[in-house]
């Protein structure tokens, strides 16, 4: 549970730029949420109660970045009708925001941080890398995409995250060819964090468990309320039963969750 109540308000779209194939970087004006957010937390973005077209339900997005002037950055990929419509948001339009929500990453102190991102799982790590690097932490950002066309604009990425990412693509068009997991140095002592598609997270969690390495993951599931009331967004716990992605997570110790298919 977050200590403070989340904020709910309409927020103006400041900009929305295409940063890769099917992928947009949306900046919203929300000083309250910008100030209150911690890396790993998310916001629900919706069109409000008058709207019945997709997305009818608000959608959860990681806080992808924040600025002292109140800007909140959101990484958005068009998957279906709801996100396709959101990709067309233009400056001056507004959306309904609820957040920040959920449990953030625990970064501890001093140790280097390794972030493993798959696809739009990059989002929380832009914010995290920016904050942690500013605080003097050593951050490695490993970022994988299926194809080169989907790789987030490298210049913008470096400016948001306070430094570049090490990019892996399955087609080898950008960065190194292969899976992002190949970039992990398992011998190093570090805080290991993952966010991405469920198959990637499972492979990462199994590799970490085999080596006895602690890992935090940020998970995704269909979400209704975002605040723990509807019990819609559950993921399986290692000890049986279900955890709510929205308030028990979205960040979990990988060992808390069940990873078998």
């Amino acid at each position, binding site marked *: 549970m977050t200590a403070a109540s989340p904020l709910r308000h309409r927020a103006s779209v400041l900009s929305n730029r295409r940063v890769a194939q099917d992928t947009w970087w949306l900046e919203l004006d929300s000083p309250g949420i910008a100030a209150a957010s911690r890396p790993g937390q998310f916001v629900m973005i919706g069109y409000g109660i008058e709207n*019945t077209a997709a997305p009818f339900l*608000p959608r959860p997005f990681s806080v992808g970045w924040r600025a002292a002037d109140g800007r909140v950055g959101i990484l958005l990929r068009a998957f279906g009708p709801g996100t396709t419509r959101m990709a067309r948001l233009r400056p001056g339009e507004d959306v309904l925001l609820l957040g920040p929500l959920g449990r953030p990453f625990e970064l501890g102190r001093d140790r280097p941080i390794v972030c493993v991102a798959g696809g739009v799982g990059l989002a929380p790590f832009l914010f995290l890398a920016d904050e942690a690097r500013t605080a003097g932490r050593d951050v490695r950002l490993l970022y994988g995409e299926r194809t080169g066309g989907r790789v987030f604009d490298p210049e913008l990425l470096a400016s948001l995250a306070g430094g570049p990412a090490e990019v892996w693509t399955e087609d080898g068009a950008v960065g190194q060819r292969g899976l992002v997991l190949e970039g992990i140095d398992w011998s190093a002592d570090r805080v290991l964090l993952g966010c991405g598609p469920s198959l990637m997270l499972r492979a990462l969690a199994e590799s970490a468990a085999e080596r006895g390495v602690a890992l935090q993951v940020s998970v995704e599931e*269909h979400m209704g309320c975002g605040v723990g009331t*509807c019990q*819609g967004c559950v993921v399986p716990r290692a000890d049986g039963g279900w955890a709510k992605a929205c308030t028990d997570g979205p960040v979990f110790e990988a060992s808390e969750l069940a990873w078998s298919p």
Partner: protein
Amino acid sequence: MVPVSAVGARGGSAPPRSNDPRPRLAQTLFGVEFQSPVLLASGTCGYGREYDGLIPLDRIGGLVTKAVSVEPRTGNPPHRIAETPAGMINAIGLHNVGLDRFISEKLPWLRDNLERARVFVNVVGRTVEDYAEVVSRLDVEEGFLGYEINVSCPNVKGGTMFGTDEAALAELVGRLRTCTERPIVVKLTPNVPDIGVFARLCEEEGADGLSAINTFPGMLIDVDRRRPVIGNVSGGVSGPAILPMGVYLTWRASRASSLPIMGIGGIRSARDALQYILAGASLVQVGTALFVDPSSAEAVHEGLEAHLERHAISSLTEMVGALELPAPPPPDAGTSG
């Protein structure tokens, strides 16, 4: 069986008019005053506390808790929810903490933090005795007004849903009437040929009110994967898509019984709520709309106040069931086509 009469009046009564500072939305129902007709629907507001700080619960009419069963239930596998056109489908599986933890962990917060909001505990079971145990053991506790009985679940004994089987429903309501003098409100399923039959039956067996309606059964298929989207295969459809069905079934239920009705299904504005109220509902429940905007219940309340003021209507009770039909309804008004 002789029904035990519940506390107070069955029907709503308006507050006295002269020099009465109470707002126009107040009504006396189930023996107590509801400051507002707007409640939060079961399954969409947890046990109340989850919305603390986001929804000023003591400014609305109240809430209906997540379903409570004797034993904890772990619920269904994901995906449990998905969006549908102008709505959503859910199959949560009545995931709940069970009666013991509800009493020790959830009820105290409701008791200690709500003064004016009225609380109904939604009750679910697999057998009549399951329901009776929840009601009997809760009855000695404080912090809630009455029960909303969820009958849209399978009866282990007969295999059908309580809510679609006249004999099973009659047995259930009659049995619960012997367990409590608190208000019993039966949440009707829309999945019956004539909801009026079930509304009348609840009244005959001693229920104090009706909630109309629960979700519609539905299914959503991922055509690329050729699989159901919902882990449980099928689920219940809610949201604006079901508003006209809910209004219609509320109207049918109100014509068949004199019990007060909580109208529910797709309400997201005062005008939506007024449709239910004109159709015969005294109270309304806002559900899925809370996910779209947690402030929607309060907005419905404020919109109703504004409507009454604008039309110089002194009390909401004047609107309850005040639907004006253009002519005597045709004999087939109850059927489609």
